[in-house]
């Protein structure tokens, strides 16, 4: 929490605003974007470099630490960045507080639920419950 004494413009706004975390939201969106720059490029490069795109190849790839770990990070950071981005969109266009709360809450549930589904599927592949 900054009270405005920090030296950078971002430092001055962190902790301020009506919700007290607008600065953090702004920064998080940018940090996750850099992570996704790496993870998204990793996903496309991996799919290009894999010999085949059949199920067996996918399972072997996602069972290895070099496949499973970046994929887990991609899912977590991807859903977080999507939620942060959609919140900007909603806050720009849905002004009535009740509607804003409802839409943002629905998006939060979708992002957390979707992320949980994807991580569950990945865990099932990575920890070998299927052949």
């Amino acid at each position, binding site marked *: 929490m900054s009270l405005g004494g920090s030296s950078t413009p971002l430092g001055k706004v962190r902790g301020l605003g009506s919700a007290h975390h607008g600065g953090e939201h702004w920064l998080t969106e*940018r940090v996750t*974007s*850099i992570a996704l*720059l790496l993870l*998204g490029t990793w996903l*496309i490069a991996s799919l*290009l470099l894999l010999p*085949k*795109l059949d*199920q067996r190849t*996918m*399972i072997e790839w*996602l069972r290895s630490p070099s496949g499973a770990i970046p*994929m887990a990070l*991609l*899912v977590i950071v*991807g*859903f977080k960045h*999507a939620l942060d*981005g*959609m919140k900007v*969109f909603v806050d720009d266009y849905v002004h009535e507080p009740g509607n804003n709360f409802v839409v943002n809450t629905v998006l939060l549930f979708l992002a957390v639920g*979707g992320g949980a*589904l*994807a991580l569950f*599927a*990945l865990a*099932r*592949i990575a920890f070998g*419950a*299927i052949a």
Partner: protein
Amino acid sequence: MAVSIIHRATGTALSFAGLGILTWWLFAISSGTDAYADFTKAATHPIGLIVLIGLTWSFFQHLLSGIRHLVMDTGAAFELGINKTFAILTIVGSVLLTAALWFYLLGGAK
């Protein structure tokens, strides 16, 4: 202006369709051969291909215009000429990257 709107549109497409298909794909891999065959059938259907090509373009466009936003966050590239050139380059770059990727994928390499 246009590139800023496209940044939001591609971000929304990636959030819903992109993460939705990523989740479906992981579930298909984890759910046995029938589920994976269903996914492959949908993904290689002409409509599925159009959606996937659209999403890869959205990814590259959002990535490049995202880099543009990060540069502008530092206070740079606000001069009209540079700003416009940068905006156009994001579109040229995303189209070229998408074309290269899909020519490779559909060109028999996979």
